[in-house]
């Protein structure tokens, strides 16, 4: 399993936990309260991602400084898969965010400034991030699976 596949499965596992938590909270807190927690969890998710990336960079830098070669885990193909998956992730999240903002605009035209709240903007951004992570992870797994299938 490549490093990107591991990251993708980890992302999907965390997403599954977040979505399960969201669905469980709807009866107790209502849809709006559950959406607040969903948006909040996406910010923690983003922070955890950044910390993990930083740890990885520091570890590989330490290995290079120590002069050890070690096992190759990242190369040009991984990079190509990464950028393709990132493009799909951003495309999916941007579509969602643009649609969300278009909805805000129509509500603003109908109801005025009171029709759009800051909380709803946070929901769109938070869910947009979760869509980015989901689309990224699924694209990585699809690309790797295609290549493994070709190899038999």
């Amino acid at each position, binding site marked *: 399993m490549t490093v990107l596949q591991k990251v993708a499965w980890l992302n999907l596992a965390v997403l599954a936990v977040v979505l399960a938590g969201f669905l469980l909270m709807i009866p107790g807190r209502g849809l709006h309260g559950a959406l607040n927690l969903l948006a909040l969890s996406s910010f923690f998710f983003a922070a955890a991602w950044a910390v993990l990336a930083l740890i990885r960079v520091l570890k590989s830098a330490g290995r290079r400084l120590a002069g050890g070669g070690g096992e190759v885990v990242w*190369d040009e*193909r991984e990079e190509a898969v990464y950028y393709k998956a990132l493009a799909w992730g951003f495309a999916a999240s941007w579509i969602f965010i643009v649609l969300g903002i278009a909805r805000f605009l129509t509500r603003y035209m109908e109801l005025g400034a009171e029709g759009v709240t800051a909380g709803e903007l946070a929901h769109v951004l938070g869910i947009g991030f979760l869509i980015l992570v989901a689309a990224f992870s699924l694209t990585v797994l699809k690309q790797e699976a295609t*290549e493994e299938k*070709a*190899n038999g």
Partner: protein
Amino acid sequence: MADQRVTNCIRRLRFENGEMTQQELADKTGVTRQTIIAIEAGKYMPSLPLAFKLARAFGRGVEEVFRLDERPASRPDLPPDRE
């Protein structure tokens, strides 16, 4: 318009070089085994520097390892010599 496809004979060359494993070739060229698998299967096109490294791992030139197949887009099912 011609349909261009780059093919390679890495699998054959590995076996001709003492049944070199994919992992050994990956270690020699500084990539992952998955990358060698993808290149052999024609699912990934290596960069020019990697193509040179792969050729050098077998002591060959790039054109002995990689070949550009050109065939008309209208008859992709036919091998080049039948067109």
